[in-house]
């Protein structure tokens, strides 16, 4: 093989590596997403169930803290009715949040959620939640927002406190849009 062919061969291979790594950069997104769903990392692996058939009541009690925040794009007030409560594992329960539109127009909001410690998200089962759908509030309208859930009884022993956190965004919020600033 002469020198030119050898150089072409090395170039071809290395270009392939570079293209492959470009693809790998994008592949990291689904890879991380799957990793988080499997391990609960990031605290967003909350389980969703149609009904309470999986709920088996237990004596164990865990304390849940309800956290609420609003992205600056949304002129809403949003808080939990009760900040901390105790719940029996495996018992279908309800917690209430209240949201109020203090802006001058009707706005659609959408909440994202997250559980701390992240491991607990694998045992957190929601049967119905205001975060599953978009929420429309008229100007000055205030609304109670329930979340129906239970905690699986096989929650690891070392978890005694769980924080459930919500953040409300303006529907279709785009961080690159600075018009609301």
């Amino acid at each position, binding site marked *: 093989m002469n020198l030119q062919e050898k150089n072409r061969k090395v170039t071809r291979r290395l*270009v392939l590596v570079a293209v*492959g*790594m470009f693809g*790998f950069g*994008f592949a990291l997104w689904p890879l991380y997403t799957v990793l988080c769903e499997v391990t609960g990392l990031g605290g967003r692996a909350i389980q969703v169930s149609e009904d309470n058939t999986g709920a088996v009541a237990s004596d164990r009690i865990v304390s849940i803290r309800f956290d609420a925040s609003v992205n600056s794009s949304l002129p809403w007030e949003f808080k939990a009715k009760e900040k901390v409560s105790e719940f029996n594992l495996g018992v279908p329960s309800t917690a209430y949040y209240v949201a109020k539109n203090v802006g001058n127009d009707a706005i659609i909001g959408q909440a994202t959620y997250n559980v701390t410690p992240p491991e607990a998200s694998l045992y957190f089962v929601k049967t119905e939640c205001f975060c599953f759908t978009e929420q429309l509030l008229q100007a000055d309208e205030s609304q109670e927002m329930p979340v129906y859930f239970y905690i699986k009884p096989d929650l690891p022993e070392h978890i005694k406190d769980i924080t459930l956190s919500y953040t409300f965004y*303006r529907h279709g919020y785009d*961080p690159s849009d600075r018009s609301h600033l």
Partner: protein
Amino acid sequence: MSTEVIHPDTHHVDDGHDHGDHKPSNFLDRWLFTTNHKDIGTLYLIFSLTMFFIGGSMAMVIRAELFMPGLQLVEPDFFNQMTTMHALIMVFGAVMPAWVGFANWLIPMMIGAPDMALPRMNNWSFWILPFAFTMLLSTLFMDSGGPAAGWTLYPPLVLQTGTSFAFVVFAVHMMGVSSIMGSINIIATIFNMRAPGMRLLRMPMFVWTWLITAFLLIAVMPVLAGAVTMLLTDHFFSTNFFNAAGGGDPVMFQHIFWFFGHPEVYIMILPAFGVISEILPTFSRKPLFGYGSMVYATATIAFLSFIVWAHHMFTVGMPLQGELYFMYATMLISVPTGVKVFNWVSTMWQGSMTFETPMLFAIGFVVLFTIGGLSGLMLAITAADFQYHDTYFVVAHFHYVLVPGSVFALMAATYYWLPKFTGNMYSEKWGKIHFWSSAIFVNVLFFPQHYLGLAGMPRRIPDYSPQFADFNMISSLGGFAFGATQLIFVGVVLHCAYRSKVKATPEVWEGSRGLEWTLDSPPAYHSFNTPPVVTHNALSRAD
């Protein structure tokens, strides 16, 4: 490979004597269309020196604003544009192209090759850069201003950059393409163009460290390109890769970015390790101690650099096991790095040392880089990092490894090989003045920043609490002096190239070893048209 004699197909007829000195006479032909590794090396070095001063003047703006508490000179948003641009320009415009420039000049001469393997691609890799940086710098003059979210480009903040963001992303793409093409060229040259007898484990350390660096570049620059492409579509095409409201995850950007970012710091420092491993043996008049372990340590560092990225994001809320893994993995890097430092010290041990300017910069590197390495070890302690994170301690740490680290090694390399490149000796007196003032002022500039960070001063802010005033003033004074000192460097280089009357011998230095020192100073425009005979004496390695 060892028995096969490679005859490079050059268009020059070799009649057994040095007739390689046909430079194109036309200016455009000589520089714009050049495929000569020495010319392209020179272009890279001039370009990076220019960028060094542009990025440096931004640092002067930053230090001037931080001279006193309160807002004096610039708006906060412009201040943030300065910190962001300073970093982007120094990393991608000054340090990386400077190393590619030295690679172009030296690698063919060190391995006995007539030129780089892919000379026309070499021309492309350089000439992309001025366009990339014109585009990046032009954002400062746009209505929406330049990027101001830090060089790490974290969303969602960076997505608030205006329309100029597209220019930033395309500039990063072009830098990436340039680096990847340069790396392919370097790897092809080292694999295919070595003179007979120049076996892999006989190559000079600078060639070895660049070979490994080139692989790092090819592996991680495309990942950065992918990450900024996702930012681009998030910004302009309503994708939600990193937008929490749309189901994306901003922390994921940090994971992808630092998968590139940590190897990137080794891209900037591994060639420096190579240069130091060339210079210390010369002025100690001893072979390099532990050549083999140097090669393996470099490869180990490169491998480890892929599995430690999350030490930049200890505070994002990782599980404890993750924090511990990234802490221990990071600390592991100090083992191969320690091997290198001890090898350098052993190289000097009982050598008959002299202290010309390159040696001074090399010793300065070993001492000051080690300080930066140790503060890095402190930052790796995950529990302590919660205190240090995003403070000036981090700023002090990475500036110690980059300025008296990479930049000092670049200075050392310049003083060491400039007589070879130009054929003239530089002024030793002014070189020494440059070294001593740099070494003093760089410490005045960055050492107080450790204290600022430990006291809790956050980075990337234009204003601060009055309790930080004294150390900031000292740091700024050191900064201005360090900046001014670099003008001496330009003076020394220009004097050496155009004015110096002292001609350099082919060996230049008494203890120099390696194929480049067997060529004239300056070497002919086309050197090693016939592969040299690699004698034992020409190699700087130990056995």
